[in-house]
């Protein structure tokens, strides 16, 4: 008799999720589904709103990455306005986006995943959390808190709020950077560098002990996509998209926001509210791809900053071509943070960074516009249509978590098949299945635009549909 395992809710994620594992008659895993069980609908209720309200409305989608929504949305609005924003405004936005990436990655790595990495995937779940981390390695916990505060404090300095800042608007930003704030951020950098160095040094020491997990945590060939500069360095806010194949060959390059829908399609599945993005020429699901830290490092030839470039060289030695295991998202996330610190320092020493000209103005000059940016979890695309009065008639958002959706499902299946035999499993095994999802750091609230906090659940279902076991957290 076949069975089903349900993990519900999946813990230590951004949003609500559930995993169902379908077993065959022998109790081995036949299929797996990662369900995103919440729904919101921002695209629909933004209809009828003036386009210039969109950035602040869209930022409310997420409390972790509101800045990326602000930026992608503002860029879509600027396409409607047909304006190019001032250099200083572009640099300030880039800094804000990087600060958000640092705090979001700090949350993912230190708060959500470091308990598994430090204490072990089989450790007692009662202490597999931040208090367990501080008991075992307090300096690591403090480094995480420090990096999260660093990113949040920059967001607060620039946007006046840690969450849902409103500083980014269509045309630029509302006000220039004050010298005192620049100096304050520069003064915070040495501590932030020390924190990320501590984390990277520690991670590189322990990474090899997770090789068995790395071999089965969504470790398979796939396409990768992300923003990149003309010099092939990593980019978070401007640039254009590049897609590479599993061997590293360039499949598509220089994709602007306006060209996005020519290349990327979206499919739906009945078991999840999150859409499944795919590369159109290969169709669905063959054209599924991955985005986010791992993809960014795989598509880039350099980070464009000295310390992160050294780390990128080491990272690329993990594989002959693109690094395929999603376990290495953790490592890539730390390199992203280091890059973010260096880039913020570069931006703050730009001679024009205190310039007062930070906003361009215009009305409706086009009836359609799209914008894209790298959110911490990967590429984010906003696409709007407006009427002659600038009221939104249609909106579509393609979120990083939707673009990783197929890979997450495949990854859960791969790990579940490897670990669950004869219908038998332990808490540590289920934690590994959840940890596959955690490597992607999905933001379920973003991907479905859903309401709510965090948790996930795993169900074990027999071949005749009977619920055999369920773990709910």
């Amino acid at each position, binding site marked *: 008799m076949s069975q089903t395992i349900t993990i519900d809710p999946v813990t230590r994620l951004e949003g609500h999720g559930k995993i169902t594992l379908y077993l065959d008659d022998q109790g081995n895993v036949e299929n797996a589904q990662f369900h995103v069980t919440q729904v919101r609908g921002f695209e629909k209720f933004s209809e009828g709103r003036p386009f210039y309200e969109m950035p602040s409305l869209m930022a409310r989608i997420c*409390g972790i990455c509101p800045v990326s929504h602000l930026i992608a949305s503002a860029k879509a609005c600027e396409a409607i306005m047909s304006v190019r924003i001032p250099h200083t405004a572009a640099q300030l936005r880039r800094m804000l986006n990087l600060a958000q990436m640092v705090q979001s990655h700090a949350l993912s790595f230190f708060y959500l995943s470091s308990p598994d990495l430090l204490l072990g995937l089989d450790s007692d779940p009662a202490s597999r959390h931040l208090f367990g981390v501080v008991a075992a390695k307090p300096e690591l916990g403090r480094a995480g808190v420090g990096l999260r*505060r660093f990113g949040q404090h920059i967001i607060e300095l620039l946007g006046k709020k840690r969450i849902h800042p409103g500083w980014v608007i269509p045309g630029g930003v509302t006000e220039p950077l004050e010298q005192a704030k620049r100096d304050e951020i520069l003064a915070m950098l040495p501590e932030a560098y020390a924190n990320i160095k501590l984390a990277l040094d520690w991670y590189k020491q322990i990474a090899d002990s997770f090789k068995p997990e790395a071999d089965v945590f969504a470790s398979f060939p796939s396409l990768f996509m992300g923003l990149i500069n003309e010099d092939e360095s990593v980019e978070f806010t401007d640039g254009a998209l590049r897609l590479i194949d599993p061997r590293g060959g360039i499949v598509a390059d220089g994709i602007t926001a306006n060209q996005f829908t020519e290349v990327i399609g979206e499919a739906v599945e009945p078991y999840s509210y999150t859409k499944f993005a795919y590369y159109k020429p290969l169709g669905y699901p063959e054209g599924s791809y991955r985005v986010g830290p791992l993809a960014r490092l795989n598509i880039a030839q350099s980070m464009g900053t000295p310390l992160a470039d050294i780390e990128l060289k080491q990272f690329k030695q993990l594989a002959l071509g693109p690094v395929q295991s999603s376990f290495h998202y953790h490592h890539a996330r730390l390199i992203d943070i280091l890059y973010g610190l260096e880039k913020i320092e570069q931006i703050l020493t730009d001679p024009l960074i205190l310039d007062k000209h930070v906003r361009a103005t215009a009305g409706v000059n086009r009836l359609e516009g799209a914008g894209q940016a790298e959110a911490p979890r990967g590429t984010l695309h906003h696409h709007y249509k407006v009427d002659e009065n600038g009221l939104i008639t249609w909106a579509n958002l393609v979120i990083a978590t939707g673009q990783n959706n197929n890979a997450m499902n495949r990854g859960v299946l791969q790990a579940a098949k490897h670990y669950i035999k004869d219908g038998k499993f332990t808490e540590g095994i289920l934690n590994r299945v959840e940890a596959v999802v955690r490597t992607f750091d999905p933001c379920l609230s973003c991907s479905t635009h859903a309401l709510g906090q965090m948790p996930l659940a795993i169900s074990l279902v027999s071949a005749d549909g009977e619920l055999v076991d369920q773990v709910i957290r």
Partner: protein
Amino acid sequence: MNTGTARCLILACGNTLREDDGVGPFLASWAEERFSSAQGVRVLIQHQWAPELSAEIADAQTAIFLDCAVNASPGSVTLSPVEAATEIPRLFTHHLDAATLLALARDYYSALPSRALLLTIGAASLELREAFSETVKAALPAAQRTLEEAVLSLLETAGQRK
């Protein structure tokens, strides 16, 4: 972070778009103005209390947490001492209560405010609205008086510690 040591840290939590849930942020904004000339009063207003606040708490000489309470009688104003938790909730990362935040400050930074208080106001309604229920509106003067006295008392404690 260059925030300086607070003699009294006022930490509010709540969503101002959810009716009475916004009472903590409202009171914190009121206190920020009321104590604008007092040295060392720091006000932090958050949607949720997250682990990184432990660093600010560890730095503070005294602290008062402001929140609405869904399990209390609507409109009731309750001020009580709060201690670092000894039992840690198993599932958390985004939202912590005052006792857990204090425990994080203790465990991460080996430091705690010399006194910590929790001021709660019983919520009558948490609907999507940027205004308080009549019950909570009526309780605001009492809540402001209690908060004022509590902050003055905490500042005195901080002064004594110096």
